[in-house]
């Protein structure tokens, strides 16, 4: 893995940034924001892909990698789409026409 001290710097700064990025959130956005952040946390796909690509043909690694990739992508794809669906409902441009 990359050198530890580098990783810790990045960890610290990333956390501080995360703390700052979200300031005041109107209650209406709590659920979509939670859902969007959740989709982002599916970034573990990167770990799964790395695992597969560096598996050197080892079957258990390939299998576990693919399964974890499936789980992570489920999180990512589902998360972003569902967030978009929610946010689409909030858009003001929505026509007022009845059902």
């Amino acid at each position, binding site marked *: 893995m990359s050198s530890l001290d580098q990783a810790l710097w990045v960890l610290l700064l990333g956390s501080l940034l995360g703390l700052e990025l*979200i300031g005041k959130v109107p*209650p209406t956005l*709590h659920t979509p924001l939670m859902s969007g952040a959740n989709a982002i946390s599916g970034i573990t796909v990167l770990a799964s892909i790395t695992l597969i690509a560096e598996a050197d043909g080892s079957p258990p690694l390939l299998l576990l990698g693919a399964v974890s990739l499936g789980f992570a992508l489920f999180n990512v794809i589902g998360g972003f789409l569902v967030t978009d669906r929610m946010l689409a409902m909030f858009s003001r441009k929505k026509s007022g026409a009845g*059902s």
Partner: protein
Amino acid sequence: MSAIDVFGYGIDLLAVLLLALGLKGLSKVRSARSANGLAALAMGLAVAGLLIQLQPSPTAWLWIALGTAGGGLLGLLTAQRVPMTAMPETVALFNGCGGMASLLVALAVALFDPGDSGLVERISIVISVFVGAITFSGSIVAMGKLQGWIGTPGWTQSSVRHAVNITLALASLVGGVFLAASPVSEAGPLWLLVLASTLLGIGVTLSIGGADMPVVISLLNSYSGVAAAAAGFVVGSQLLIVAGAMVGAAGLILTQVMCTAMNRSLLSVLFGGALGAGSSGGHVGGGGDEAGYSRIVSCSAEECAMALETAERVVFVPGYGLAVAQAQHALRELAKLLEANGSEVSYAIHPVAGRMPGHMNVLLAEADVPYEQLIEMDTINPEFPRTDVVIVLGANDVVNPDAKTDPSSPLYGMPVLEVDQARQVFVVKRSLGAGYAGIANALFELPQTAMVFGDAKAVLQQLCTELRSQGVGSKVAVAA
């Protein structure tokens, strides 16, 4: 550094930048939707950059395709099919799967990766397994509770649960320490860790009431960020570490913000046990149960319909009960009748009405209620004095006047919808039962208030029928 490395590296930096912008944008109404797209784009970039850097072998490509097809398709279908009202459950499910992914990556490396591992890597594996497992099992339990599949067992409300959870936490600790300390990974401590932390996730979540679930899910979401960051340490990806840390920290803040909006503290959510779990109500001495009220006027849907027919300004106050009764479409129906009848109709949206933030917006949007008619609390409160009829639909705490006047009330200090200022108030609910906070509501006893007992959907349908039978339906054609 080869050209490809430099390229991949630039993509990584760009992806973090876009992710940060996405997270930031998601917290503002105007930009939220495009920010979500931005974050998705960043994710796509990151994956593409990684694939370019790693140049997977054909076999690897095959397995990647397999995983992608499986997870991607399922995600797509789930996202499209799930009803809007089941959002918290859905987010919990997704979140649990993210945790599972981190758990599996760490397991795979610990069990099958031949290379010798350093202390740092082993610690990362322990954290990844621990947090991943808790996130997974906790999220699944949260989902089950929200769906009503899982109840709140009695023992989780006694102090037994503290003993159980502490034992599980200690077991995880032991497993983790042994795993981290031994240079060759041993299966024993690993499985102990997996098992104990999975159970711990269940144990902690099981004791929390369904109404507090959004907070718990947000917290677990923060955890899954931490798990991702730990997985980043395991596979050595800067980008993963940054993104994971960012989401973890942002999730923590969001959890805090949500707690504040609901007048709860995070500690009391996590350790306080279930609060107002459905009908348990009345935990505050004296108030709450039906015997507590002295002067209640109840009326029929017919009388209510008559008042509505002549009202010029009608405000609906939707609450948790409306969501439970799935009555949003019936409500929209009634509103259309009234509008055709010449009334001015709007909806008063309290920020924490319902059981998840934005619950009412989502619910009413699903029933195609025009966005302009959803009025935020601060805007509509001054309007109540010139409102003829207020119909409170399955809402309770958010219209409780004690929050303003009674310092001893648990709600005291929470801003509420001041419906008591209106000329006439109808409260539609099934009984005199309490709401989430489990306390009595002084509104029900006011002279201008009348209760309309019944299921929200049934009452709304009755109202529509009454109005139509009085000829309001026919005027629609004339007005149009």
